[in-house]
């Protein structure tokens, strides 16, 4: 056996041993082991995928977008993917080392900070860059630093690489300057525009001249139809536009992509962005546009991003929150249900959540939470989120702190009463804890859960 193949086989064995022993870690361990044995493993293995590799990154929505793009491509072309969350270099290496024999294309979601390294090693055929929001500044430094690293990365990409960029994000749109093969994706539907820029908005000055940006339509955070009032820079013309977006509450929405009708089973405007990005990437990778638009209807949310859990005669709806822009969108989606309803907020401050919890003060809880019948606060920072609710005008009598997430989950369901629903908004590690709780309680999930590939 050639030396490299032996190293790869050893790494694979390590991964399956780790999974079988129930210790977890199977999603990144083989990659970490392999990279130690053979530092150039990623380059070598990626080169063996006949249809190349596509990378997906963004602050919000990369897991959903990558999973959706895979669902649009998979029927035509066997895809090798990384597990949700295993999106650092080691996770990509793990996915490559355990790739299905038939895999022709690599499709990886990559952490914003790890992206330049992964891209430099792989020389991707396509890169989809979604939004850049303020997220976990304690871990990643400021937005500007990521934008600069992405700029340097783009400058070094092969000229043949196709860039699929969210044109509605000024920082991301600027990455297309001076490049060929750029697909600009955005929304074009004033009926779903916000009244103005929310407080949490980032990137509101012109990259070129520093003047304030003007928005003809704001769709989400700082995403929208933007232009500079001074120097004339503006959102590039859209290659793929999402239009006629008709939200249908938690059931999802219907929309047109590039003029083609599509139905989307995921709620919220942010998922319209995810769908438009996934569609554009699939088309750039060779899927017929009509086929791609059709296939969107069959897709369900990746595990943990949006879930409904039946618990006896009541239900829990879980929506992940991890930063102001995402949390505002979750609240906007749930607002009609939250009125008179029961809400459980679980705020953890572990490394994967971000140690700095100040972001909760940039979420517009004021707009929605005072109308809730009851708000339960939980997690390692339960008192912090409760305090935030107090200053958002949630009446003290309707507010309670239950630090332990499992106990808080039970309490929220009890408050929901027979036939009712608890709306649960956890941060990332809190979501994992709640899933373990739900599994331990033997609660069934009426909707399918996506397995890590």
């Amino acid at each position: 056996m050639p030396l490299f193949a032996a190293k790869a086989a050893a790494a694979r064995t390590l991964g399956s041993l780790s999974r079988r022993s129930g210790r977890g870690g199977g999603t990144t361990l083989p990659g970490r082991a392999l990279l130690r044995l053979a530092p150039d493993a990623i380059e070598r293995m990626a080169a063996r995928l006949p249809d190349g590799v596509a990378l997906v990154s963004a602050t919000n929505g990369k897991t959903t977008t990558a999973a959706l793009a895979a669902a649009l491509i998979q029927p035509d072309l066997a895809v090798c993917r990384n597990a949700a969350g295993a999106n650092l270099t080691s996770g990509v290496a793990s996915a490559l080392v355990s790739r299905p024999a038939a895999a022709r294309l690599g499709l990886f979601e990559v952490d914003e900070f790890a992206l330049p390294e992964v891209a430099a090693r792989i020389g991707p055929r396509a890169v989809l860059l979604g939004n850049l929001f303020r997220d976990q500044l304690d871990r990643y430094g400021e937005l500007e630093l990521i934008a600069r690293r992405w700029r340097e990365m783009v400058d070094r990409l092969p000229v043949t690489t196709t860039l699929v960029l969210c044109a509605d994000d000024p920082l991301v749109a600027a990455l297309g300057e001076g490049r060929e093969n750029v697909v600009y994706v955005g929304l074009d539907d004033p009926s779903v525009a916000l009244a103005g820029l929310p407080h949490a908005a980032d990137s509101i000055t012109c990259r070129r001249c520093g003047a304030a940006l003007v928005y003809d339509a704001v769709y989400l955070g700082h995403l929208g139809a933007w232009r500079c009032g001074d120097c004339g820079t503006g959102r590039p013309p859209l290659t793929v536009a999402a239009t006629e977006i008709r939200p249908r509450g938690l059931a999802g929405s219907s929309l047109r992509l590039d003029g083609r009708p599509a139905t989307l089973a995921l709620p919220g405007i942010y998922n319209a962005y995810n769908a438009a990005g996934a569609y554009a990437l699939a088309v750039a990778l060779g899927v017929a546009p009509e086929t791609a638009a059709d296939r969107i209807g069959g897709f369900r949310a990746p595990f943990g991003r949006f879930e409904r859990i039946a618990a006896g005669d009541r239900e829990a709806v879980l929506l992940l929150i991890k930063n102001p822009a995402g949390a505002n969108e979750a609240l906007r989606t749930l607002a009609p249900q939250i009125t008179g309803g029961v809400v459980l907020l679980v705020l953890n401050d572990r490394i994967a959540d971000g140690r700095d919890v100040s972001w909760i003060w940039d979420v517009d809880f004021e707009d929605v939470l005072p109308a809730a019948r009851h708000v339960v606060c939980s997690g390692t920072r339960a008192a912090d989120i409760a305090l935030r609710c107090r200053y958002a005008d949630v009446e003290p009598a309707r507010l309670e702190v239950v630090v332990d997430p499992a106990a808080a989950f039970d309490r929220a369901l009890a408050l929901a009463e027979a036939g009712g629903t608890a709306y649960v908004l956890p941060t990332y590690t809190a979501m994992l804890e709640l899933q373990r709780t739900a599994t331990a309680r033997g609660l069934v999930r009426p909707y399918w859960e996506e397995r890590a590939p």
Partner: protein
Amino acid sequence: MITIVPVYPSLLSIYADRGNVRVLVQRAAWRGIAVRVEPLGLGETLDPARADLILIGGGQDRDQLLVADALRTQTSQLRAAVDDGASILAVCGGFQLLGHRYRGHHGDEMLGTGLVDLETIAGDTRLIGNVLVDCGEGRTMVGFENHAGRTFLGSDTRPLGSVVAGAGNNGADGLEGCRAPGIIGTYVHGPLLPKNPWIADELLARAVARRGGGALAPLDDALELQAAAGAARIARAERR
């Protein structure tokens, strides 16, 4: 009626600084004190007679020069406001701009307002994490810090407190923030005021007194203190 003035909020609110505004507004409202919020935009001139509570937050690095240039044009107005009984709360980037200058890695200098005798030097690493500060008289301050600048106080400048856990002004001298008549500067966000309500009330009391009002009525701060105690525990546990 007291007037709160967030300075350049579109550029200076990276660490949820608007939470500080929210806390001041609510703690005034709960006591029946009339309050208005009048942000100062770029290019506008501060009215020293009108502004009671001036909040200067932190921004993205790339906006800092723009902010510094704008803020320096307001130095005399800021000074006049403070001399007339107003207060300034400056956090992170705002704290640095209270000083004389920020010295970069290559000898480059960005001038501040010089309202307080202090200066900041660029560091090689960011100082990031939970912070616990002893402010004397049985008072503590908790929050989160995230800054590359190392700030050093002039010999006659008082710190806001001494670091129990975390880095503080520069990670070396054990000091955190600064205090001058009518001025508080600090690296601590989180944001600062929700979990440190005594600072919010000190600022409000001065503003109310300036407008002829009396002492502040006490509030039930059980939740504030619970959150502060939790944050203090976390800061002690991760002592760097």
